[in-house]
């Protein structure tokens, strides 16, 4: 191990980790919105939209992010749609994540009993209020464990961002291996960086899961 080399390149990894994290943040945020929208259309069985959403969910769940990114980044410019690397990464992650989030939220929505909605109707809440005050709070508490799992999954998926010419952690590691043949050092830093990102999130997720377990009604 060449410790000088390691200390020299730590800042590069930190910067790359920062790139990964900020893209992951926007991608995940967007995927939560897409997921919420999709799960609500599926839950309320909105006529035409329901089919479109179902097709989208199947399409995005059954294809790898890598292939989606290739299509977005190398395929679409051929018909005049040029997207920057960053937007590509965010769109790709949101396209993939949206369906996973939708499934997670839908399982939560479906766990809310019919009696809850009926009771809400009988006290005179309108449709919007029922969703906002009755269904969502209960559904989200059930959905938290799968949502957390999806967030971790999506952060892990960001490791393919290097294919759309983004200097993420994988890119830096591969670069250092190629340039200096410092394989051990580069890989050690790579593993440590991902541990530094994912370990706290995974621990926070399990703490959060334990806390919201009591939020459900009647338990």
């Amino acid at each position: 191990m060449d410790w000088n080399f390691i200390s020299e390149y730590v800042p590069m990894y930190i910067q790359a980790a920062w790139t990964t994290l900020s893209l992951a943040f926007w991608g995940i945020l967007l995927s939560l919105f897409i997921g919420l929208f999709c799960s609500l259309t599926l839950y309320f069985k909105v006529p035409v939209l329901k089919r479109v959403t179902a097709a989208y969910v199947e399409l995005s769940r059954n294809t790898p992010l890598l292939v989606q990114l290739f299509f977005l980044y190398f395929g679409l410019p051929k018909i005049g749609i040029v997207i920057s690397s960053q937007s590509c990464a965010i769109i790709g992650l949101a396209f993939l994540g949206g369906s996973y989030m939708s499934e997670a939220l839908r399982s939560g929505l479906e766990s809310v009993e019919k009696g809850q909605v009926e009771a809400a109707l009988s006290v005179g809440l309108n449709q919007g209020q029922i969703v906002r005050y009755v269904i969502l709070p209960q559904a989200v508490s059930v959905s938290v464990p799968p949502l957390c799992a999806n967030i971790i999954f999506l952060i892990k998926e960001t490791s393919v961002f290097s294919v759309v010419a983004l200097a993420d952690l994988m890119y830096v590691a591969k670069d250092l291996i190629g340039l200096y043949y410092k394989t051990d050092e580069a890989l050690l830093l790579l593993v440590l960086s991902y541990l530094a990102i994912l370990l706290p999130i995974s621990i926070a997720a399990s703490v959060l899961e334990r806390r919201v377990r009591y939020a459900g009604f009647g338990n």
Partner: protein
Amino acid sequence: MQDLGIRVLLEGNNMIRLLDGLWVTVRISLLAVVISIVMGILLGMVMTLKNPVTKALTRIYLEFIRIMPQLVLLFLIYFGAAKAFNIHISGELSAVIVFTLWGTAEMGDLVRGALISIPKHQYDSSAALGLTGIQIYRYIIIPQTLRRLIPLAINLVTRMIKTTSLIVLIGVVEVLKVGQQIIEASRYTAPSAALWIYGTVFFLYFIVCFPISKLSGKLEKRWQN
């Protein structure tokens, strides 16, 4: 321009080459899945033991494999192990090793979950009947766990196939790489080939994974109770 692009797919044996590339991906995932299922069942059984040492070891293994992106694991084997032990591991072999390690961890956790979901009285009453440890598993526990396990294991196959797309990044010639070769070869004759080729690859993955995930969902629903 665009009709030129779609022609590339049908030219020569391009479509056959793409399918051959897809087969490389599918073959690696199937091989890894088969080994992972066998090893995962063993791992899952070990994980239910009360021994603190095996508990700690399997836990560390599981957490490490699950927290690392699969691409990092591929790099560790393909670049790291090659240098550390001074051996050459081909891209395909490292893919099988990595996906087996990963699949074993995932499968092990599924098996453990299925095993502990079996009520304790099932173990107790079979022990009371005088069955040995092996007999308890063979006749009582395994048949019940299989029903919970099979849909999840099938689902693992689709996850494995999707994840295997990463092997292009360690230099294995699979469907994406073949697609790139075709695009490069027809750069001047069909400039818009990339759209059609990558679109085709996208749908090829969908066509492979969709039926498998549908099957898994259907079995899960049917065997719920």
